[in-house]
């Protein structure tokens, strides 16, 4: 099967620190793939590279056969203004040739079909649940300044459609009763769920979840596993960072393990669990009973 997302020799340096070091992996369409590793291993950095928060120092990431991440061109080239790479649809063909160009910004990557959640909840706290999810729908619509000012028919229809889509996304994750609640007033578990709903509203082909089970109890984690499976059943590929080992082994079909920025193993849960390097990397970390590593707030 063609890889939906492919990283080759992915490297990221922050000054003297090498956060990600020559990592290769594939995420195939329709799979649920896990990205695990001890704290400080570079997992969120990899996510940030995928979603365009910063460009890699070396290596590439290809999504649907397009290079969405590559090292930035020399500063000289950067002086030349960007040419409409943001508009969904146009110029994508040009980008396929993977020539040096301006690194894609996160909103451009979202437009290409990758949506994510964050390690710490990044909801729009003072907006309602509905408004949060409507933000996810934003990039799928077009209405601009003139449409808003003149209140054109098309714009009004689009607005109604946006509300519909948002409500559908809420309903899908059983959040409909909380439609008009302010995001910051929701209990933590629901906030996490709302973040996923918002990401889904962007209709991604790949959903990147950064520690979705952090802070959830056993029952909530079980529900999360079911929901992720349902999402995959809808045709969305899922890429998950997690520390909760039980959840990862139960949920993911394919796992990539990183430690200190390097990939140390890749394979099915069974293979990974028996891998000597993986065991060594996790030895010395204190586990509690269900295999979850505490201190899940630290940088992976």
């Amino acid at each position, binding site marked *: 099967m063609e890889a939906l997302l492919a990283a080759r020799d992915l490297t990221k340096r922050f000054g003297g620190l090498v956060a990600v070091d020559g990592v290769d992996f594939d995420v195939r369409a329709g799979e649920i793939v896990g990205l695990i590793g001890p704290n400080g291993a570079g997992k969120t950095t990899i996510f940030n590279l995928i979603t365009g928060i910063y460009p890699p120092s070396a290596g590439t990431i290809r999504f649907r056969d397009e290079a969405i991440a590559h090292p930035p061109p020399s500063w000289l080239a950067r002086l030349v203004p960007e040419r409409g790479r943001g508009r969904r649809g146009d110029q994508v063909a040009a980008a396929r040739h993977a020539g040096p160009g301006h690194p894609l*910004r996160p909103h451009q990557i979202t437009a290409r079909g990758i*949506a994510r959640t964050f390690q710490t909840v990044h909801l729009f*706290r003072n907006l309602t649940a509905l408004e949060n999810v409507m933000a996810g729908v934003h990039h*799928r619509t077009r209405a601009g300044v003139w449409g*808003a000012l003149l209140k054109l028919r098309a714009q009004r229809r689009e607005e109604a459609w946006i509300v519909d889509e948002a409500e559908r996304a809420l309903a899908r994750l059983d959040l409909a009763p909380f439609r008009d609640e302010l995001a910051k007033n929701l209990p933590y578990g629901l906030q996490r769920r709302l973040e996923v709903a918002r990401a889904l509203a962007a209709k991604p082909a790949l959903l990147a979840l950064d520690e979705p089970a952090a802070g959830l109890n056993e029952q909530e984690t079980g529900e999360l596993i079911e929901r992720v499976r349902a999402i995959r059943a809808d045709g969305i590929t899922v890429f998950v960072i997690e520390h909760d080992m039980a959840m990862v082994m139960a949920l993911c079909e394919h796992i990539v393990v990183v430690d200190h920025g390097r990939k140390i193993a890749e394979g099915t849960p069974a293979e990974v669990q028996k891998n000597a390097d993986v065991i060594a990397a996790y030895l010395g970390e204190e586990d509690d009973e269900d295999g979850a590593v505490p201190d899940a707030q630290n940088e992976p």
Partner: protein
Amino acid sequence: MGVQMTSTRAGLEGIAAALRRRPLIWQLGLLALALLLPLPLGDYYRTVAWRTGLYAILGLSLTVIVGYAGLYQLGHAAFYAIGAYTSAILNLRLGIPLLLTLPASVCVSGLCGYVITRPILRLRGDYLMIVTIAFGEVVRLALVNNIFGLTGGANGLSGIARPSLGGFEIRAPIHHYYLMLFFLVLTLAGIHRLQHSRLGRAWMCVREDEEAAEAMGIDTTRVKLLAFVIGSAWAGLAGGLYAGKLTVVAPDIAKFMESVVLFCIVVLGGTGSLPGVFVGTLGMVTLPELFRPLRAWRDAWVGVAMVVMMIARPEGLWPSRKVQLEIRGEKEEASGRSAAAEAGS
């Protein structure tokens, strides 16, 4: 400042809620009031009313930048001046009737807004604010130094023709007032629509959490740029109206004090809310005009108001609900953090 629910407040909130359900009632009521307002007044007060309306338009234009996109613009008067001078120059040099110069003023101001903003959007909030101050001063100096020989130096340009509608010259203060009122209503309608549109939501999201907004597919740079350009362009319109009434434009309209007054109108009145802009305008512009004897101490009173407001009610007198929640939330977080620090961790 706890929550004190006195019965008066509860009563007022009840009325407010009822009005919110039928906006057309109070909107028409206000419009009628505005139309009738100048009739019993003398010319002096009609001019005060005109100035109030003009600054309200300016305040609304700035609220898009500060209130919606959350950018600290302390050089807004520069775009006001650019619009005024554009109208003046087109009228004086090319004989274009004033009302027809207004679209040009809008475009020129908007264009300048675009050119200025593009490179500075990636700057952090503090630094962005400083650049806007610097830009405001550069514009003022350019005007004083008679740039391109167009702007007439420290005394500015005079002899601008008054606006005329199909032969009827708009000369008396009351006619200027109605012209301004027309544009004010237009501005209010436009901003209201923007606020409740896809773009308005994008602005709110960018204000709340820029990183998340970008991750959701909102082009944050473009959205901020739009706010800036729209706000700057509309300030240009106000400038054109100003030129038409006073028939004289001078570099003084671009000075920092003007920008600060505008900024205060938005922030002290109530960031991000439309009624707040009016409250701010009344406080910063109308009241000082009405209490002439206090002129000498006006700046001091304004200063005191600013300090007191920030301590007592930083979200402004009539803030939008969201901003109020935001600011209270920030305060709670910050005091929570320092309380934790004092207790030791």
